[in-house]
């Protein structure tokens, strides 16, 4: 059975999704999604273990060999991302039941879980596949189910947010396919490793190749919400149901970053960046995003919207790490991929608890919530500290690695900018803490702590934010191996 692990990773959620539709019952659908996402997590851990001990796993669909058939190819990089996505999927479905029952119309809950499982399928598929076009198909599976999930939000504006996301997401996917088409024109192959082998000898100044790189970069930047292509993200995150926001914030953009890494380092290789100067462009947008999005976050009254803008800023950090083009920088990006997933999931899960008990996301109505929901807000504070980068939380590990990468690339001003932008995070996190702890509760005096089934997953994530902030051996260790592989150019 262990030879079939890569396909099981995708197949389990894909086959479970139709059962949710057929059984048409919200609790059964929840149970299915819980069991399936836990199984996926187990499979992803087994895959990671197998990759770390035995090297790259390759799986041929229908036994058609690699450059012709579709190949699932898993090395340390995607095994690591698979674990992130599957772990978040498991935590969110553990957490989701009460929150979903409260926020989504009763007769649509089983459809929500179907979309959730399909989204998980798509994201895991994007990560596992070794075929660039197959990746597009999984991208569409995850995107379409995401649009459906976002539109299930209670607020009517969820529909327009979802539509806006649909337009931008489709644009991004189209650009990805155009870029891929140009590459196919040059090489006649769609397999990622084969693409690399054929491109490696080509002259990087060929116009078609540069156009392909440009289309792929812009398309994926839309998907991963790199500033200034992030406009869909704040609305989608603010109006989607809380569970969906927590899931998306921690997975969807991360997988897009992974795809970008694949395109940059595995398909094109590092050399083309020096010829085109793309890395400098990315660095400028990443730094601009860190500052502009953090500043916008400070002025938000909607706590979900504030965290959404903070996500845009954090994606700036990830892209900044990648744009250094050295192994330390890429490992900083990769480790922040996991760390940001943990901290943002913690924050959004805590907000979900607040929405569950108080029914509001307005900061002005959350006076004194820290006294009424101490466990929820405690976890939020840990997530917020990680966003700032306080030592002993995961955020510190990423920032430390990022700053060492800046030093290694001889870019002192960039290191200073990283520190400066962290101060902006202090402001927006402090605003919440001030309102939650230092103001007297004015209304909703009967508010209780969130139910235990929501608090346990929330605190698992908060605990992870602390644990991986202290013991970096596992996370940073794997990220460094993966970064060496990517930058070293071994496919």
């Amino acid at each position, binding site marked *: 059975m262990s030879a079939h692990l890569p396909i099981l990773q995708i197949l389990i959620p894909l086959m479970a999704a139709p059962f949710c*539709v057929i059984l048409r019952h919200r609790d059964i659908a929840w149970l299915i999604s819980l069991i399936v996402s836990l199984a996926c997590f187990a499979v992803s851990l087994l895959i990671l273990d197998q990759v770390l001990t035995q090297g790259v796993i390759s799986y041929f669909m229908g036994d058609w060999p690699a450059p012709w058939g579709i190949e699932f190819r898993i090395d340390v990089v995607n095994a690591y991302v698979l674990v992130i996505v599957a772990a978040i999927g498991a935590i969110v479905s553990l957490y989701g039941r009460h929150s979903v029952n409260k926020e989504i119309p009763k007769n649509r809950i089983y459809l929500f879980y179907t979309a959730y499982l399909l989204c998980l399928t798509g994201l895991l598929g994007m990560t596992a596949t070794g075929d660039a076009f197959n990746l597009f198909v999984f991208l569409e599976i995850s995107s379409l189910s995401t649009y459906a999930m976002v539109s299930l939000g209670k607020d009517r504006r969820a529909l327009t947010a979802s539509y806006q996301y649909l337009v931008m997401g489709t644009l991004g996917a189209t650009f990805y396919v155009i870029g891929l088409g140009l590459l196919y024109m040059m090489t006649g192959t769609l397999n990622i490793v084969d693409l690399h082998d054929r491109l490696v000898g080509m002259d990087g100044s060929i116009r078609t190749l540069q156009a392909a790189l440009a289309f792929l970069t812009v398309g994926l930047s839309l998907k991963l919400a790199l500033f200034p292509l992030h406009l869909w993200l704040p609305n989608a995150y603010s109006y989607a149901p809380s569970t969906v926001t927590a899931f998306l914030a921690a997975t969807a953009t991360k997988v897009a970053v992974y795809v970008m890494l694949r395109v940059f380092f595995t398909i094109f290789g590092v050399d083309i960046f020096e010829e085109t100067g793309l890395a400098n462009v990315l660095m400028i947008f990443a730094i601009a995003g860190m500052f502009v999005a953090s500043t916008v976050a400070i002025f938000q009254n909607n706590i979900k919207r504030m965290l959404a803008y903070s996500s845009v800023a954090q994606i700036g950090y990830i892209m900044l790490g990648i744009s250094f083009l050295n192994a330390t920088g890429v490992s900083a990006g990769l480790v922040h991929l996991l760390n940001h997933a943990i901290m943002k999931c913690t924050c959004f899960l805590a907000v979900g608890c607040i929405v569950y008990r108080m029914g509001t996301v307005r900061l002005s109505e959350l006076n004194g919530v820290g006294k009424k929901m101490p466990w929820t807000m405690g976890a939020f504070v840990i997530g917020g500290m990680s966003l700032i980068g306080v030592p002993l939380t995961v955020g510190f590990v990423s920032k430390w690695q990022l700053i060492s990468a800046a030093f290694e690339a001889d870019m002192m001003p960039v290191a200073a900018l990283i520190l400066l932008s962290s101060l902006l995070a202090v402001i927006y996190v402090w605003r919440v803490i001030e309102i939650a702890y230092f103001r007297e509760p004015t209304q909703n005096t009967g508010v209780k702590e969130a139910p235990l089934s929501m608090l346990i997953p929330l605190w698992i994530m908060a605990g992870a934010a602390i644990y991986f902030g202290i013991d970096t051996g596992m996370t940073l260790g794997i990220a460094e191996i993966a970064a060496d592989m990517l930058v070293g150019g071994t496919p």
Partner: protein
Amino acid sequence: MIQRKPILRVTSKVFMPFILLYALYVQFHGDFGPGGGFQAGVIFGSSFILYALIFGLHDAKLVLPSAVLEILSALGVLVYAGTGVVSFFMGSNFLNYNALAHDALHGQHYGILLVELGVGITVFSSMTLIFYVFAGRGR
């Protein structure tokens, strides 16, 4: 209004079995001629859409309730993936049709037929469901 147009009602009634039959032909002849699950599903669905246009959405839903369509649309995916899983349990990789019969040629043949059947079922039910949703708006 359309209830009083006997020509439309009778013609569509006469056409219906032929449309369904043609859909089945496209479905199961897809491996030797042009066609396949997607086209067949659309044709099969169009007959129900025609019925709904002429006799009204209410009557169409009596014949084919949307709950049934939802289940069918899920079933098609299961048929497709299930075919892959069968070859998986026969000791080959996922979706290797060779394992489905005693020799590779027949295996590929059965595999394609089954997979396209799954596609056909899902496309038919999704098409009809989309029509139901649009036609049922504002009621």
